[in-house]
């Protein structure tokens, strides 16, 4: 008896829908084993991780706040991945967007600039992120450089640039030498939706981005071009689609969304520019994109789920003294299972009994 993978005649849409759920299930089993090995009760640990945040109003808002950048970035990344362009550097584009938008906030600080400041900051964030995203794209199209390496390496450049700015030219003179800018003025801050709450306008923007992404991919010729270039490059050329142009476009949109997510994070929940504004949103968004099957609605759900792991991770650290890094372990295992389960869409498991190879001994 042996277990073989057999190719399906056509991709299975049912499996495409449930494969992320299978992946989550397998991840939870693996995590339970991990918790048991850490000497914690797996059931209560999973409860703290995944149930407790959902029954608390503050945590629910916090989940939405954390999901906002994840979803925005992942929508952009999904365009890149569908076009077979591997943007791994959304974290860097996120940081550069934050820096570009913060520039205006710092420059207008203390002046009586009007309400145009925030929209202009968002625009600057998007443009900054887009330009930063175009660097690896141009290197790929022009010189054939691997975008996986260049986009990833540019993350560290962005990180250090931000670090330099908040320790040097943009440091708050009244900030006791902490590496941070001054708190942004109210006109440079993303407004909250509920008075005294955490939920802010960025959540609405993220929903608009999801809707726009869904329309782009399903209803426009550009979305179709992006999908064909990734799925069948030669057919795309036969269709008359310019793959280089589409790679540049996908990186630009992806960078713009990451950049805008960056400035929203800084001008919203954080309120000022400082190092460590991202707990790795740009990397976690890669998992969100794949867990969401590179589909905008799926990404929205996956974004909320991974935001839950951030909140649950914090609570588990407080309540059960489980290290915060377990959250990253969880996210890594999840990506692993998501990619593994994807093979079930095109293949199926089959048990083969009594193959001729086995019966050969009788000959």
């Amino acid at each position, binding site marked *: 008896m042996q277990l073989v993978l057999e190719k399906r005649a056509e991709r299975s849409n049912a499996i495409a829908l449930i494969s992320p759920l299978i992946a989550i299930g397998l991840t939870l089993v693996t995590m339970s084993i991990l918790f048991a090995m850490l000497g914690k009760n797996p059931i209560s640990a999973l409860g703290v991780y995944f149930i407790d945040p959902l029954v608390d109003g503050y945590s629910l808002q916090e989940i939405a706040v954390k999901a906002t950048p994840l979803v925005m970035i992942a929508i952009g990344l999904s365009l890149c991945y569908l076009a077979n362009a591997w943007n791994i550097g959304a974290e860097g584009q996120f940081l550069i967007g934050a820096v570009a938008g913060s520039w205006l906030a710092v420059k207008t600080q203390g002046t009586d600039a009007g309400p145009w400041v925030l929209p202009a900051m968002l625009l600057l964030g998007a443009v900054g992120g887009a330009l930063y995203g175009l660097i690896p794209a141009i290197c790929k199209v022009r010189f054939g450089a691997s975008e996986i390496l260049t986009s990833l390496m540019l993350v560290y450049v962005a990180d250090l640039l931000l670090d330099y700015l908040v320790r040097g030219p943009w440091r708050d003179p009244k900030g006791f030498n902490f590496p941070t800018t001054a708190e942004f003025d109210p006109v440079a801050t993303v407004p909250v939706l509920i008075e005294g709450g955490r939920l802010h306008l960025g959540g609405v923007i993220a929903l608009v981005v999801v809707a726009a992404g869904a329309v782009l991919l399903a209803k426009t*010729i550009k979305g179709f071009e992006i999908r*064909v270039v990734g*799925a*069948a490059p*030669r*057919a*795309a050329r*036969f269709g008359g689609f310019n793959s280089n142009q589409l790679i540049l476009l996908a990186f630009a949109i992806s960078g713009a969304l990451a950049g805008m997510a960056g400035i929203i994070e800084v001008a919203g929940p954080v309120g000022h520019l400082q190092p460590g504004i991202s707990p790795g949103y740009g990397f976690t968004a890669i998992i969100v994109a794949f867990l969401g099957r590179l589909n905008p609605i799926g990404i929205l759900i996956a974004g909320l789920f991974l935001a839950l792991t951030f909140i649950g991770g914090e609570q588990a650290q407080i309540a059960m003294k489980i290290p915060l890094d377990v959250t990253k372990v969880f996210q890594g295992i999840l990506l692993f299972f998501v990619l593994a389960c994807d093979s079930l869409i095109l293949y199926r498991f089959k048990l083969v009994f009594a193959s*001729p190879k086995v019966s*050969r001994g009788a000959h």
Partner: protein
Amino acid sequence: MPDSTPAVQHTGATPLLQTVGLTKRYGTLLANEAVDIDIWPQQIHALLGENGAGKSTLVKTVYGLIQPSEGEMRWQGEQMVLSGPSDARARGIGMVFQHFSLFDNLTVAENVALGLDGKESFKDMSARLEEVSRVYGLPLNPKREVWQLSVGERQRIEIVRALMQNPKFLILDEPTAVLTPQEADQLFIVLDRLKAEGCAILYISHKLAEVKRLCDTATILRDGKKVSTCNPKAETAASLARMMVGGEIGRVKAAANRQTNVPRLVVNDLTLAPDDLHGVRLQHVSFELRGGEILGIAGVAGNGQDELFAALSGERLAQDPDTVVIDGRAAGHLSITQRRKLGAAFVPEERLGHAAAPRMKLSENALLTGHAASGMVQHGFVNTAAMLKTVDRATEAFDVRKARRDPEAASLSGGNLQKFIVGREILRSPAVLVVSQPTWGVDAGAAAVIRQALLDLAASGAAVLVTSQDLDELTEITDRIAVMFHGHLSEPMATVDASREKLGLLMGGSTLEQKEAAHAAGA
């Protein structure tokens, strides 16, 4: 099922190889169902059938690449279970595949060494290679790198490699598909000689004339089942075809009075360097194609046909706009989309991955080439209803059989997908249609539909350019034929004057002048 003609007498009491009730199941699909075949020494046994009839599955089972689901094989009367191809080779079963497994950047000898068990030294092996190739009249230089060789020479490597294992039983899968008629004759001499030496040969082909001439026995498969075993010499090509298809094949009819009028596709002195290392350079290609006319381009694969297609479609651009003129407009510098807007349509050889995106729906594949010049795109938004309408129209006009209204391209059979692809282009009523290998790997019924569609399109005034390696197909539907060799295109000749001999010589690279000169010298 009774045999239609008695099979010939056999030497010896037991067959060399026997399959008894051989069945191979893939899920619910029966690729082979209870197939019984007897292979005798000193016989060339033809295996006939349409694409998808189960020929490949059967030979792969016999060669140990696939394990049968049911039934058994007997080798010289004893039960045989093969764990893999090396097991088959050890018993003396050799196979020459349709698609060569050769490394382009290695030499002939290195390639042969890789396929052997490697017990002898490289030097001894090279010497034996030269000897075998000389004895059988299959000349090969062991030191040449494969990428420099013609397709016919590459096939010779595969055959010599198989012969060096002293096979008792040799399987050849469509060996003449890539050969000129003269090269095919050479191959038949080798096969006759092997047969005389006692070897059994299983010969897969769909060229019925060839089978009638060469083979002693023929087994016909249809839908995975054996239809008949007969003596092909006692059958007609039509009766063999009937058994393969299970019915009559409609013959294509050309319109009686076709008008050829204005030039619609003109190529002027097109020279284009290849864009990859092993590509072919197009050299001063010129021809003129009028509305209402079908021009055929014959030639052995890999002589620049792919490069010509790319240059005509605009997947590769020429420096000089005047090298390609579509309906009176210089188009050498225009993209494929702009050329489509001028009224050109293209059908490349590869269905999956080139003409169609395999994992996308038919409606999306309609959009792939239809976006430029139809109502499928409005202000950047796609019109799904218009895309589906194209699918429905192509389905109806060309009898595309599929499980659902809008399935993925890869789920269709080769013939049905090709009908959809040709239909997709013809429904746009193109002024110029450039089509490469229109019926490659397509069943006979679908092939007839496609050929008829090309004739009808020409009858409506369009110019049609057909590249094919199937001379029968070109003779059947074209008005004129030109031959491509090493990137040169011969002067087109009227199809009625194009004998197989003439075409074969051009396909092998000799120009007509040379031949006439030789003729004059002989006289």
